[in-house]
């Protein structure tokens, strides 16, 4: 279509748009008519329409890409087999979206409910997973079904619920002008659904018209068990946890029962009350407490103290006679202030409604003498409440006494069981698919036990210590390590917080310091890992500041656990590096390797040697990033020795061979890489690269299609060629060619293959030109540009990776060809882009490798400017370079290598 003239393009476009408006079955007719006007245009339009149908079948551009800052626009995101379509509503808990099942199995709409991420810290996620578990068990025609539950990639927990296209029950009744009998019939469906939930020990606790929808078929669907709470507890002891408090705070006052606003026990009677309110509203169109006109405070007062009127007294005139008598009695019995005075069960309420329908006598009776006494009690609430508190205090005291004896007897079975058995089981099942529910149950059960024990453990130090360890073990399951879903990181943080609080209390009480201190270190270390995982830098800063003196103190202790110390240093190394404390990062990584080296010496098991090699590699990376090249070299040489030993012990282990190749190349880079800061010891670097490349070639020969082998091989040729190209351009070209052919053989069009290929193509032009093979050099540079084009469109971190070799090669060529102005222009563009990108966090003042790239570029830029006669700017750029190097010298005062590396 590129050769189409603009007028024709516009005309075809217009007709296509018109055609889309025509219904498919009328389209043939429309086309025939249009064809009569302009046959050639219509041929194009027909083709477009065919293609449009294909576009629809392919769902082309319908699933939108993930965006960096995402949330408000979940549209198009997929969660499991569901694709989010549009926002349904916001709520206290988060947002609800309409979604479609899009895995092609069957088209089905669903509602996806996302928990507001901000609530995660305050038990919101617990409430959420709790809701998920409860709802999943409930299958009833009048209850919206839970279809799925999970945690998204963005760590957002979500529930997939049956999508209900309906209207609130009160609006439905009014819109359809239902009479009282029809309203009772509809209300009975609600009652049956709630009765079913009660049979499953689930109290809804938030029944209100917006949670009771009526669908197109005129049937009721009950939604949102958001604050439903499982009615269980092995000894009837249902603690008022934070969960229930948060749930209580989230409820809707207008439909709340007195016990909900006064903090009383929530039972099935609570739902009876809410149903009474709903029934009142359906029958009369008014709220029993006159909620419409009241302030929040007045409403709560009315719920607690004001007796509701009889429905027949407030209903519209024509309905009053139907309501008077039995319906009045039924509603008022459901609305009793005292739960005991209400229907004993939802079934009893349903029975009375059925009796009313059949014109039989109902069970409920109008107010009795006993009830009037109740009203007296309510009017003298304060005095009665004081008496109740006294009674309750007594019984709690008795309970605790008994409880402690029971704990003393069962404590070891219980705690040990939690601390060990449960987690062994958890480990066993964690690798099984579909074990999430079981694991969650384990976590939940453990937390329940721990909470109960914690409440009763006051003063029992030993028990407190065990509980603290228990909390930490629960946290491990919830998500300290990468293997666990990050969605649980906040839960883990909460559990660790409890563990830490208990341990600090013990520490303040100087209880068993030899054990308390290492346990505290382990807990705080885990907390720092959670902070690190969440990239919560302010928390991490505080945590590390707490951890450092603790470890210092522990190291001085006569007996200490080396594995704990090395673990803590290892994770602290990553943390402080993230916080920009580069020197400390190197120091800590070194401490970790020192300790692990000793552990491996004493017990040279595979595990110990493996973790030593890992921590040596980590140290080498940190050390290189902090200008400690000699130490990096030492660590890598040692890691190589360890890998060699493992290779000898287990010949042919592919993984070990790959590690050998990688470590050799890493060693070469620390010694004398051309593209990053190094010691500049070229000969040794070349030897290391040659070794890595030899292993790479051998791996490639064993499996030519294996990606790891191909990358290793290409990496080896690239590094070695870079290192030798000045002294032996012909050999360098041969190596580049080897790498190019391997990379060309790999599937292209992706970043991980294309960027190395662009680099190798561009770098190879330098020795090619030395050999006067300019024609080939030009072709390669053009190929590099073509390949790099996709990554260069917008300036970004990835565009720099291809721009650097290309623009350097072009500038070098321009300068050699006597076109210094062109060279200046290439350099200027690159420097401008890199400096602008500082705002994105790509800052050469934070990262030594980027500093090297920029420093080298300043040098080349300055040289080109001088050649172009722009002496003043050349000097200014040289000053910039010096400033950058000075900055790094001050940042890493302990490294004598930073300056030479950056000035190379």
């Amino acid at each position, binding site marked *: 279509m590129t050769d189409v003239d603009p007028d024709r393009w516009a005309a075809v476009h217009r007709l296509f748009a018109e055609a889309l408006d025509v219904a498919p079955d009328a389209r043939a007719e429309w086309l025939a008519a249009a064809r009569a006007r302009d046959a050639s245009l219509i041929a194009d339009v027909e083709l477009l329409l065919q293609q449009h149908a294909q576009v629809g079948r392919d769902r082309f551009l319908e699933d939108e890409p993930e965006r960096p800052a995402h949330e408000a626009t979940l549209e198009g995101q997929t969660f499991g087999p569901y694709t989010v379509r549009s926002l349904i509503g916001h709520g206290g808990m988060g947002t609800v979206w309409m979604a479609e099942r899009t895995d092609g199995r069957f088209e089905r709409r669903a509602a996806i409910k996302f928990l507001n991420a901000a609530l995660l810290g305050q038990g919101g996620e617990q409430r959420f997973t709790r809701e998920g578990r409860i709802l999943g068990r409930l299958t009833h025609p009048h209850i919206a079904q839970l279809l799925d539950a999970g945690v998204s990639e963005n760590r957002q927990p979500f529930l997939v619920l049956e999508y209900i296209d309906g209207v609130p029950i009160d609006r439905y009744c009014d819109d359809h002008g239902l009479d009282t009998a029809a309203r009772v019939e509809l209300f009975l469906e609600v009652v049956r659904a709630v009765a079913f939930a009660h049979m499953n020990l689930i109290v809804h606790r938030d029944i209100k018209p917006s949670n009771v929808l009526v669908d197109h078929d005129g049937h009721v669907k009950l939604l949102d068990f958001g604050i439903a709470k499982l009615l269980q507890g092995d000894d009837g002891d249902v603690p008022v946890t934070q969960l229930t408090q948060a749930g209580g705070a989230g409820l809707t006052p207008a439909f709340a029962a007195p016990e909900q606003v006064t903090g009383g026990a929530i039972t099935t009677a609570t739902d009876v009350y809410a149903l009474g309110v709903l029934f009142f509203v359906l029958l009369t169109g008014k709220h029993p407490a006159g909620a419409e006109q009241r302030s929040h405070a007045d409403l709560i007062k009315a719920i607690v103290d004001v007796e509701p009127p009889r429905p027949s007294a407030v209903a519209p005139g024509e309905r009053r006679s139907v309501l008077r008598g039995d319906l009045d009695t039924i509603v008022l019995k459901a609305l009793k202030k005292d739960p005991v005075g209400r229907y004993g069960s939802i079934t009893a309420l349903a029975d009375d409604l059925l009796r009313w329908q059949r014109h039989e006598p109902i069970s409920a009776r109008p107010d009795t003498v006993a009830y009037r006494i109740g009203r007296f009690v309510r009017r003298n609430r304060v005095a009665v409440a004081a008496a109740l508190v006294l009674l309750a205090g007594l019984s709690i005291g008795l309970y605790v006494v008994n409880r402690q004896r029971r704990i003393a007897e069962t404590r070891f079975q219980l705690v040990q069981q939690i601390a060990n058995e449960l987690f062994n089981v958890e480990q066993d099942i964690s690798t099984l698919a579909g074990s999430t529910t079981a694991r969650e149950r384990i976590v939940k059960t453990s937390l329940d036990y721990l909470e109960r024990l914690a409440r009763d453990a006051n003063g029992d130090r030993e028990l407190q210590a065990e509980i603290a360890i228990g909390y930490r073990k629960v946290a491990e399951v919830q998500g300290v390590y990468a293997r666990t879903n990050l969605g649980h990181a906040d839960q883990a943080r909460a559990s660790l917080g409890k563990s830490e609080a208990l341990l600090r209390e013990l520490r303040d009480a100087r209880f068993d310091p030899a054990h308390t201190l290492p346990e505290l270190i382990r807990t705080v270390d885990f907390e720092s890992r959670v902070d690190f995982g969440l990239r919560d830098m302010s928390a991490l800063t505080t945590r590390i500041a707490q951890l450092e003196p603790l470890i210092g103190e522990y190291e001085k202790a006569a007996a200490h656990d080396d594995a704990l110390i090395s673990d803590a240093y290892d994770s602290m190394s990553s943390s402080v590096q993230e916080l920009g404390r580069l020197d400390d990062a190197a120091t800590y990584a070194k401490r970790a390797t020192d300790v692990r080296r000793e552990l491996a010496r004493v017990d040279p098991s595979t595990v110990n040697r493996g973790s030593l090699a890992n921590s040596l590699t980590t140290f080498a990376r940190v050390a290189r990033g902090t200008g400690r090249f000699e130490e990096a070299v030492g660590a890598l040489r040692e890691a190589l020795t360890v890998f060699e030993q493992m290779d000898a012990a287990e010949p042919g282990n592919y993984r070990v061979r790959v590690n050998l190749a990688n470590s050799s190349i890493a060693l070469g880079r620390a010694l004398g890489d051309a593209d990053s800061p190094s010691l500049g010891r070229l000969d040794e670097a070349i030897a290391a690269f040659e070794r890595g490349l030899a292993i790479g070639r051998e791996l490639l020969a064993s499996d030519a299609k294996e990606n790891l082998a191909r*990358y290793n091989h290409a990496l080896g040729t690239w590094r070695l060629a870079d290192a030798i190209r000045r002294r032996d351009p012909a050999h360098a070209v041969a190596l580049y060619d080897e790498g190019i052919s391997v990379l060309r053989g790999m599937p292209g069009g992706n970043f991980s293959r294309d960027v190395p290929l662009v680099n190798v193509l561009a770098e190879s032009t330098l020795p090619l030109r030395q050999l006067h093979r300019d024609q080939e050099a030009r072709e390669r540079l053009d190929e590099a540009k073509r390949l790099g084009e996709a990554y260069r*469109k917008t300036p970004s971190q990835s565009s720099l990776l291809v721009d650097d070799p290309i623009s350097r090669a072009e500038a070098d060529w321009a300068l050699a060809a006597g076109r210094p102005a062109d060279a200046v222009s290439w350099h200027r563009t690159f420097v401008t*882009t890199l400096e602008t990108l500082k705002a994105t966090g790509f800052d050469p003042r934070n990262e030594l490798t980027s500093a090297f790239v920029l420093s080298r570029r300043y040098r080349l830029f300055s040289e080109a400017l001088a050649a172009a006669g722009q002496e003043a700017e050349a000097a200014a750029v040289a000053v910039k370079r010096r400033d950058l190097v000075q900055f790094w010298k001050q940042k890493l005062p302990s490294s004598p290598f930073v300056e030479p590396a950056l000035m190379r």
Partner: protein
Amino acid sequence: MEEPPTGVAALVSAAEAGDAAAKDRLFTVLYAELHAMARREIARAGSYGALGVTTLLHEAYLGLAKREGPHFPDRARFMAYAARVMRGIVIDHARMRQAAKRGGQFEITTLDTEGAAQVADERELSEIAEALDALAQRDAALAELVDLKFFCGFSFDEIAKMRGSSERTIRRQWEMARVYLHRHIRGQAPS
């Protein structure tokens, strides 16, 4: 040497006058601006916060317009440039995410060590970007629409309001753009 224009407003004017370097620089400046805003938001909210891409763009517009004063381009013109930049950010994000998945920090010369399992996503985005550039040659408004809708996530309604057009028209243009891009990528016979 002539001082190159710096502010967004000046760069937009220069770009619209045909200054290619100014256009590049404009994209760079906007990229940095948007990226920094997104990072701030992520830092503030702990994870991907409540700020969507569209909100981000609106806030960037307000911020820059306030900073640069009365000569700042109108919202629709600004969004056209910003959406083009956002396309790059989205693709970049996909790449970096893949790089991150392959393990560890992204280093300037790091090579991938795992298979190309996840590349389809990124490759497809790159193809779309390429086809969009071709479309922009033919019909810039249509290409812009795809940036706004697909890469930034604006709704048809928002785009219609931005452009002073009807939602129906925008939907029709969207279908046209889809057909064009689909054809470009899947290589069906051109008319």
